[in-house]
């Protein structure tokens, strides 16, 4: 008989962080739609505020429904702690605001979600935090971009929409050699396809809006502290290693040996910036998580069929998916993403912008909208929507052409999706021929 072991990911996705409600016996996670929680007495109230006791005070800081989601995501990522946020963007901001202040610098892959590119390029410089974007595949470029004031390296497991695969172990090594943490956005892969902390990343974030919830009904994010980075040894992060006057001179890295980052993010970031997730949202994401291990393989299976179809279609100039041998990260994808490179892919339709417009408008099953990671298949033209603020050079650096179309493959029958694509490609081909 095998010895005791931690449960498999599939079991954690359904159960981690929850036991049946002790008061009512409710088996599903209750939605604690309450702003505050009653103190049994003044003594306990003071102890809760001062972190002498564990518990919930006010839902901006913590909430029992969110706590289930947070513990479940921590378990799935193999991490000590997680924080649910109002959106993926809120998770990104919370991470940066926790680690650094004005005068700091970030090195990021240029292959980023457009929203992440916006905050790093345009918004954070106004607060004194600048970013150097590098070709994520060029390890020398990562190294060269690090400055004395750099505080973070950042990339996506699979960079949307160019589908660049981040070499997490190699970039982590570069970060750690410089005494810096690596943060990875793992939205496109989820813990079912990639667990970046085990590959060397220190912080992971997700837009839970996408595959984690999986049904396109909520906006949410999760920030995960891998507990792997030694803030004291690095000596570059006073927010974690020096007394914090905003919380009775608490030194986060002394208070928590393995989750100082999450401690500060919750006690300062959620308290002060307040980008907290709503309990109902956490409940809906938990519903999604319970089937994540079933959905992701089906997403990947469908995506592979669509890729195979598009790759041989005459109306298609190019298909971008890491599992294709033509993709620059093909080998890396096999190494780091053996269970699949996700269900988002890009392709270029012949005939440029006009053919692309016709293609999108002729689709029936695919929904034209700005999202990914839904049970429904989705389509968008990044150059005119998600990445419209990027200039031509930035678009090129992110692997986006004028005619690039991004698909997020859902859970419909693949044959029906292919039939839909076939009709739209035929119409696009007519436009291209004129």
């Amino acid at each position, binding site marked *: 008989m095998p010895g*005791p072991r931690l449960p498999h990911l599939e079991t954690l996705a359904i*159960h981690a962080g*929850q036991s049946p409600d002790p008061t009512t016996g409710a088996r599903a996670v209750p939605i604690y739609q309450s702003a505050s929680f009653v103190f049994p007495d003044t003594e306990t109230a003071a102890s809760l505020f001062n972190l002498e006791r*564990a*518990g*919930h005070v006010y839902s901006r800081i913590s*909430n029992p429904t*969110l*706590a289930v989601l947070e513990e479940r995501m921590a378990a799935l990522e193999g991490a000590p702690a997680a924080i649910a946020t109002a959106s993926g963007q809120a998770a990104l901001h919370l991470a940066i605001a926790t680690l650094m202040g004005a005068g700091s610098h970030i090195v990021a892959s240029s292959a980023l979600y457009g929203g992440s590119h916006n905050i790093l390029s345009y918004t954070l410089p106004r607060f004194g935090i600048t970013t150097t974007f590098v070709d994520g595949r060029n390890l020398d470029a990562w190294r060269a971009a690090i400055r004395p004031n750099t505080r973070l390296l950042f990339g996506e497991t699979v960079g949307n929409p160019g589908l660049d695969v981040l070499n997490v172990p190699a970039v982590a090594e570069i970060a750690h050699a410089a005494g810096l943490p690596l943060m990875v956005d793992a939205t496109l892969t989820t813990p079912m396809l990639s667990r970046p902390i085990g590959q060397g990343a220190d912080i992971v974030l997700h837009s839970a809006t996408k595959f984690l919830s999986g049904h396109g009904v909520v906006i949410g994010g999760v920030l995960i502290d891998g507990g792997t980075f030694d803030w004291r040894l690095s000596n570059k992060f006073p927010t974690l290693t020096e007394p914090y006057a905003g919380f009775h001179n608490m030194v986060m890295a002394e208070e928590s040996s393995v989750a100082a980052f999450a401690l500060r993010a919750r006690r300062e970031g959620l308290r002060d910036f307040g980008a907290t997730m709503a309990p109902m949202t956490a409940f809906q994401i938990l519903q999604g998580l319970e089937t994540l291990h079933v959905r992701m393989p089906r997403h990947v299976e469908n995506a592979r069929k669509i890729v195979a179809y598009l790759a041989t279609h005459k109306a298609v100039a190019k298909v971008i998916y890491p599992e294709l041998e033509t993709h620059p990260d093909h080998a890396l994808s096999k190494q780091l993403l053996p269970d699949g490179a996700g269900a988002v892919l890009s392709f270029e339709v012949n005939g440029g912008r006009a053919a692309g417009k016709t293609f999108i408008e002729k689709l029936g099953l695919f929904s034209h909208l700005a999202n990914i990671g839904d049970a429904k298949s989705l389509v968008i033209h990044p150059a005119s929507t998600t990445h419209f603020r990027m200039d031509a050079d930035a678009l090129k650096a992110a692997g986006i052409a004028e005619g690039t179309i991004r698909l997020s493959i859902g859970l419909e029958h693949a044959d029906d999706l292919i039939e839909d694509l076939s009709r739209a490609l035929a119409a696009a081909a007519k436009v291209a021929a004129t």
Partner: protein
Amino acid sequence: MNFLVEQQPAYAYTGGKPFDAAKPSIVFIHGAANDHSVWTFQARYFAHHGFNALAVDLPGHGRTFADAKTTIAAYSDWIVNLLDNGGIVKATMVGHSMGTLIALDAAARYPARVDKLGLLGTSVPMPVADALLDAAKHRPSEAFDMLNLWGHAPQMRIGASSIPGTSLTMSYRRLLERSRPGVLAKDLAACRAFSPGESTLESITAPTLILSGTRDMMTPPKASAAVANAITGARLVSLEMVGHAMMQEAPGRVVDELAAFLKP
């Protein structure tokens, strides 16, 4: 804050309050390959309730960079030296797992320095399986897994944690990974080798509280009960559904029991 112990810097977490030897002192002593952070809730509580709380990092652990000791007696000598250098005449000693052996040894050999004893998850002797010791020496990652699984009540492999947003098993795994190479094997060997004289437990006069988790697989309830039977006047409290990592699994219940015990 840092102290000087045996001529080398030694770290102790003071629970968010300044060190004050004029107050009644409590020394919290962690287990094998752990550090002060396992006591965060308890140290903070007592530091803010009239006590001088010191959750130490034993040598070779956490922020105390002196070499780890190889015997329980050497650790208890180190604790007493910490009291000497901190100007503390007498302290309550609260230990967990290996820390209980250190506290017991200190109480037996330095009775004038130990006010009260709190033993959380104890066993005398403290057997360590050959498989665990061998893994700790040669395959530490495997040993960390064993300690993590046996160190929590079975239901904690799923949760739910009482600490919002925290996975207790993943936190503990990461804490063990942070221990310095070889320290776990040294600590486990010290636990296994600890062999108090027959009269050691019987000789202890300090008022003693023993907390035992009913689902503790590392130091099972019957082992804690045997220690309670051997120490005159010792009080045994069972924590239902709690495993070995009781300070994290049931932080509030541990605080409540210690507070009742230490009430002046």
